[in-house]
Structure formats: structure tokens, C-alpha cells
């Protein structure tokens, strides 16, 4: 069995400053990897490099493509990389406004990926969009409404539907629950966990919220100043942190 994603020695510099440094790991199909750490620790930079939106300064990111097996995504041609991004991958942005077209209806937002890969039957596109809205618990009546009229939680769910419509194998999530109130967060996490299990998705989830990491992730990577300081199973890392920074992070969580 080959891993879905193999990262080795990934480094990204911003001039003299470190974005992320010498990150290596493997992600297996169906596995959810959490990346935690404080603001500015390089989580988003790492995610950008993994999802081919940023070029690394050194190191490789290999993805198990359907045709050629493990391939370095940064060496792929632009058309193939784009195809990969809209069929095999999904990217859920921290701010849903970055990942959605705010000027077109919810249905068109969900249908865009289908149309981009060649769907040309309006009825079929609309039916699939409706189906996915139902799966992410958005009322089917709102299919023709603009995302501008949606609440924050609905926007985030719409963004998830838009990404999952082409049945990707891997999704990248950057703070999927950022900016949502706790009850909406809980519902979204519930939904995400169900979708990930039902569809057998692999995911890389970046978050600063340890509770989110505990609920979603199988494995955790703790980052500090661009470097990975600790990795392991989620329970292990959170219940028995070894690195002093992880201990600090875990002990900083407020207990209500």
C-alpha cells in the first residue's frame, strides 16, 4: 500500500525568515492529520505548500495520482495540477468568502466544479447541487439564494459542499471552524466528522483549536516557529505531551 501524500524535507523561506522548515510526514488514505500550533507558527504556509498554492524553497510533496502513482505535485504541468485541484482535492478556506463566488447563487457555487470538469446538463448539475446542499444541511429552498444572504456557518457548509461535489480523495482545511460560535462549531464538526467517515476522505486540518483537533484528527503535528516539534496519535499528544511547547499549548486551554 502506498501513502496518499508523502512529504519530505519541505521548507519554505520568506527571504531570510522561515515559513516552515524541514517538514516530513506521510498521509494514508482515509486518515485525518491535524496541524496545530499558535498563530504565526507556519501552519498555513505548510498547508499552502501541500496544496500546491505556494512553491516550496526545497523538499518534495508527492501525491498518489490515479494515473502515475506517487508524483511530485510541484513538478506537474499546470493543466494537470489544476485538474487535480478540482477533481481529487478540495480546499476549504478559513474565510468562506475566499473559497466561494459571492455573486452567484449557492447552486452555481456547488455546480461550478462539475461544469469545470465538463458537465453540461443543467438538470443533472442542479440535482447534484441540491443533493449536496441537503448533505451539508442547507435547506434545498435556498439553492437559488446568493451566499451574501447566508450566515457564517452556512457559508462554511456551502464551501464544504462545493469542494466535495466531485468526490475528492483529499481535502485541505484551514481553520474550518474559525469565526463561528460554539454551537455552530459543534454542528459543523459533527458534520465534518460524518462526511469524512462516510466518504473515506483523507484530510489535512490546520487549526489552533485543540478541541477541534481532538474531535477530527487521527494524528497530530505540533508546529512552532515553522518546525514540527511533536507528532503522534491525537490522544497521545494531547493527553501525554512530551515537548515543553506542547505541554504549554495543552495547559493553555481554558476549562469551562
Amino acid at each position, binding site marked *: 500500500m502506498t501513502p496518499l501524500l508523502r512529504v519530505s524535507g519541505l521548507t519554505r523561506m520568506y527571504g531570510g525568515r522561515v515559513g516552515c522548515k524541514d517538514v516530513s510526514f506521510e498521509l494514508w488514505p482515509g486518515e485525518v492529520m491535524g496541524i496545530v500550533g499558535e498563530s504565526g507558527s507556519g501552519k498555513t504556509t505548510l498547508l499552502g505548500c501541500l496544496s500546491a498554492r505556494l512553491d516550496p524553497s526545497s523538499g518534495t510533496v508527492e501525491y498518489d495520482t490515479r494515473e502515475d502513482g506517487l508524483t511530485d505535485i510541484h513538478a506537474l504541468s*499546470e*493543466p494537470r495540477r*489544476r485538474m487535480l485541484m478540482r477533481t481529487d482535492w478540495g480546499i476549504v478556506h478559513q474565510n468562506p468568502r475566499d473559497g466561494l*463566488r459571492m455573486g*452567484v*447563487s449557492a*447552486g*452555481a457555487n456547488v*455546480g*461550478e*466544479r462539475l*461544469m*469545470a*470538469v*465538463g458537465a*453540461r*446538463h*443543467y*438538470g443533472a*448539475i*442542479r440535482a447534484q447541487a441540491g443533493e449536496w446542499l441537503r448533505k451539508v444541511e442547507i435547506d434545498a429552498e435556498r*439553492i*437559488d439564494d446568493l451566499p451574501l444572504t447566508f450566515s457564517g456557518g452556512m457559508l462554511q457548509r456551502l464551501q464544504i459542499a462545493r469542494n466535495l461535489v466531485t468526490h475528492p480523495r483529499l481535502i485541505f482545511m484551514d481553520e474550518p471552524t474559525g469565526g463561528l460560535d460554539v454551537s455552530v462549531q459543534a454542528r459543523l464538526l459533527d458534520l465534518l466528522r460524518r462526511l469524512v467517515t462516510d466518504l473515506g476522505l483523507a484530510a489535512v486540518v490546520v487549526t489552533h483549536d485543540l478541541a477541534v483537533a481532538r474531535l477530527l484528527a487521527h494524528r497530530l503535528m505540533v508546529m512552532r516557529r515553522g518546525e514540527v516539534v511533536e507528532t503522534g496519535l491525537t490522544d497521545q499528544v494531547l493527553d501525554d505531551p512530551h515537548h515543553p511547547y506542547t505541554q504549554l499549548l495543552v495547559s493553555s486551554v481554558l476549562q469551562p
Partner: protein
Amino acid sequence: MSTVQGYNFAYLDEQTKRMIRRAILKAVAIPGYQVPFGSREMPLPYGWGTGGIQVTAAVLGPSDTLKVIDQGADDTTNAVSIRRFFARTAGVATTERTVEATLIQTRHRIPETPLREGQILIYQVPIPEPLRWLEPRETETRKMHALADYGAMHVKLYEDVARFGRIATTYDYPVLVQGRYLMRPSPIPKFDNPKMHMNPALQLFGAGREKRIYAVPPYTEVKSLDFEDHPFAVQRWDQACALCGGADSFLDEVVTDDRGGRMYVCSDTDHCAARQEIREAAE
């Protein structure tokens, strides 16, 4: 009309015309591809046809016969002034008859009379980029053209069907040229889109402000985008032209009084006049 002295033939200098002709040659070689060119200041404002007028100046020869139409009509301000401009700076013959013209500069219409081989149709284009309202970055739209990454265009059509139950885009309807490049046919009504397909005449498009030239060579495939279950269809009217009685042309609605009176007349004045003559001759 007397020719004015002190200007080069057809206003533009020879170097500029050569530069524009090179752009046109490239455009013809790659149907639907937007070729950048060094657009010049012309003696009329942007938006009045500076792109079309430069293309016309570059391809116009002394033996050509020029026709200029604006919204199908030969007698509107823009058409009259551009026609007079070339009559005075180039001394070429002008006409209002589509069949007599070798060069037709147009704004917003394709003549109803079928064009023939050897004729050149020149469009004035305000915004050449079909993806502009979907993607504001020029670098990104160029990349999308290079990769034939046109899925986003269907998002706009989807929005139309979702809101209005049909594709409500009625003019500047996006087309795919020779199965490769997505193209904006300038703001012609979609009624005229089928005329572009396999047309025997050469079609040139000039955008002065945006500095782009593109072309559809003779006998080129031009397909209007659509959905399988919402196929492309042109406008239809339930009446005939009030002047010539024709039922197969593009009609303008003209308000005749302030009590709701209105009439429908052909937008192509030459076509309408020709048919009226035939009718009068028969009576």
C-alpha cells in the same frame, strides 16, 4: 465628397497600418485568440468604435467600397460620421447596400443579407475578454485561455437558467471558435450568432481601448455555449416588420406615441428598404 489634404491614405500612417496588419494576420492564424496591438489615439472617443476604425484603416484599399452600420442602420450618427471620415481621408467609394460593399464596419449587428466570399466584416468591440466579469485578473484570464479552462463561463449560464428559467443572455453571447478559444462576439444580439458559423466572409474584431484584435476566418466553426437540456436558441417575434412585412429579421421596437402605441421594424435598414422596393415593384 472631396478628399481632405494633409492626411495619409485612410488617416493612419503606414507604419501603424503595418503593425495592425501583423496583428490581424496573427489573429486570423489563431481563430478567436486575442492579439494585443498598439492601439492609437483616434479622432473620436473610446467606445465610439476606435478599434473598428483602426482595423478598417489598416485593411482599406483605394478600390474598396465601404459600408458602415450602427445597430443595423446606415443613417445613425456613428455610421454616418465614420463613413464620411473614410470618404474624406481615403477617398473610397461608400454604399449603404450590403451586396455592393467589400468592407463593412459594424456596431452591434451582422447584416441580414448573407455575406459572400471576399467581403470583410469589421466589428467594434468594447470589451474583448469573455471571462472578464468572472475573473478580474488579466494574468488569470490569459492562463484560462491558454489551458482552455472555460468551466467558469457555464457558471454564468447556470445563473441565468436558475434565475429566469432560460438562458437570459441576449447579446454578446459567448461562443467557442473552432472548438478552442472562447470569444466575445461584441454586443451583437444572439440572433446574429448563427450567422458567424461557417460564414464565407472574413470577420475581424477590433477593441481600441482594450488594445486587442481577434478574428474569425472564413468558414470557421463558431458554436454558442449552452446546456444539453437548455439548448441555444435565438430571439423570435410574434409579429412581422411593420414596414417591409418580413418575419425573419431582427426587429426593433419603436415607441410611436405616448399612449402605448408601438411598432416593430427591421433593425437592418438596407435589408428593409430592399424588401420594400420588391414589394412596391410587385404592386
